[in-house]
């Protein structure tokens, strides 16, 4: 799952997990950024580094970039979890900061490892926002071109194939019907298409029709009713224009006055369940 920042990506990711769990699937949701939004939408303060059941049928975890690298080094060194890693890890961390894609590929690799396990019917990853996700999903390709030999290269080639296989993985994009999110969503089709299949575009926060004509709203006495009517109509006009440029996909309504992240996710799940 990706989308431009601020469109409700984490909320929709959590909601999709809730929908799948309601249908009896065993679901793992993964936050692939340090952002704690996903956990909040699923009703927990923080997600752990390994899968934990956070509500019936839904497990959650986060893949922290530096923790994942340390864990990877431990696996490679056969080092126990508590031993300090010392200069080797410090050096490899510095190396990972310099050679682009190393950290990305380790986090992607962790998500793909979970996706390959029989334990889950569905693995949903809250990926970095659009703008970062292209280079992120292309990390295996970047690594394969930069790294001529070695174990990481072999892994990169395997991940590249798994991401490109529509039977294994797909990218769902969340957007709102506003100029920049729509433009960036459409650009993603050019930038990402060879690395991964875009399997859905989900439009969030759509306003329903006001049911009153512009002229009738304008004819009202000055005040809150008229102003709120004009704002609603104006916002909806813009939404219709931009939504028209997007491919067909699930449409989610604007939620009025919903306070907590957990409540937002459940309300979206109710709508998404009908749309899917």
């Amino acid at each position, binding site marked *: 799952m990706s989308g431009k920042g601020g469109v409700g990506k984490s909320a929709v990711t959590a909601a999709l997990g809730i929908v799948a769990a309601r249908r009896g699937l065993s679901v793992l949701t993964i936050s692939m950024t340090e*952002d704690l939004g996903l956990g909040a939408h699923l009703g927990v303060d923080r997600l752990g580094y390994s899968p934990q059941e956070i509500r019936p049928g839904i497990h959650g975890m986060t893949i922290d970039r530096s923790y994942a690298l340390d864990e990877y080094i431990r696996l490679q060194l056969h080092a126990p979890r508590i031993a300090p890693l010392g200069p080797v890890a410090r050096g490899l961390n510095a190396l990972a900061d310099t050679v682009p*894609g190393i950290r990305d590929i380790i986090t992607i690799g962790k998500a793909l490892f979970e996706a390959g396990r029989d334990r889950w019917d569905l693995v949903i990853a809250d990926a970095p926002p659009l703008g970062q996700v292209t280079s992120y999903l292309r990390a295996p390709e970047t690594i394969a071109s930069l790294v001529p030999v070695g174990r990481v290269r072999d892994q990169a080639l395997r991940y590249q194939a798994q991401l490109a296989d529509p039977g294994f993985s797909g990218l769902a994009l969340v957007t709102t019907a506003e100029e920049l999110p729509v433009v960036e969503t459409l650009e993603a089709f050019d930038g990402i298409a060879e690395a991964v299949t875009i399997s859905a575009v989900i439009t969030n926060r759509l306003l329903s029709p006001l049911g009153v004509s512009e002229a009738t709203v304008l004819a009202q006495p000055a005040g809150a009713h008229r102003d709120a009517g004009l704002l609603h109509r104006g916002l909806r006009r813009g939404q219709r224009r931009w939504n028209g440029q997007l491919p067909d996909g699930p449409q989610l309504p604007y939620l009025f006055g919903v306070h907590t992240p957990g409540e937002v996710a459940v309300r979206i799940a109710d709508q998404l369940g009908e749309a899917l």
Partner: protein
Amino acid sequence: MTGVVLVTGGGGVGKTTIAAAVGVAAAEAGHETLVLTVDPARRLATALGLEQLGNHPEPNPKLKGLSAAMLDSAASWDAIAYRHAPADIAERLVTNPLFDAVATRFPSGQSYAAAEEMTVHIESGKWDVIVVDTPPASGGIEFFASPTRMRELVGGRLLRWLTGAGLPGRRGLFNLAGRPALRLADTLLGGPLLEQVAEFLFDLRTTYDGISAKSVDIEQHLRAASTVVVTTADPGPLREALRFHEVGIKPALVVFNRALPSEWLAHEEPLVDGRAAAALNENLARWALEVRRQEDSRADFSGRVATPVAAVPWLADAPVDLEGLRAILAGSPELSLDRLGI
């Protein structure tokens, strides 16, 4: 002395528009003003007079005293190499595949390139006011950390790890047999890549003196600037806005964008006239729920940090011309040039 305003915040909160509006107000107050922006919507770029999006300041044909330029990080990285490395090494650096990869992917790289570009404009002495729409990585916090990160990158710590304590010549940089700690890196990534990295870092190290001096200047400019954090009342952007305070950046102002009028909460006589009245009553009741939510988040935010806040009204249509940009500061008394030290 150039006054610098950094406009920052999470994605999708409208910070580019706020930056443009501050720039327009500064120019109209008679200051020679430059707006540096990252990725404006096409129509906003047009409103700023950025017909062609380039690194060089374009004067706005419709507003005297206002210029705008893009912060194009790929072009800036080339400029950084040529500015800080000897010409032949700069040439070798920009053609190295790792350079391209680092320029576009090193997390702090784009931010650093933008910060150095900003500094060039500040130090040119041509501007009274520079308004910077910061690059979006990590909600803009990266921008503030980038000088330190960049110093570490070029500082040679990794190079020493790869090559041992002494810095040998560029060729034959490291000897695997003598460095058992490298064996894992070699298994994972292969010797050829490590050698390529070491060669690259060796070349990059020639930029160290230049970049360490420049990055200290940049940090001083960042500290002297007024920072405006833009947010909405939504949890994600609010979390980003709080993070600025947690890492010790003291914003001059937090702007709550897309604010709804609090008067919508007040009990008004419902409209009684016909079918439209029912729909409009219901509509106002729905939006009043949003007003309540926004007020609750603002109150919660102000309970956590003492930074002054400004509310900018939610507009049905994003501003597409100078008139629209002007209306933003006009409609938000707390968002004033005074508050930003201009």
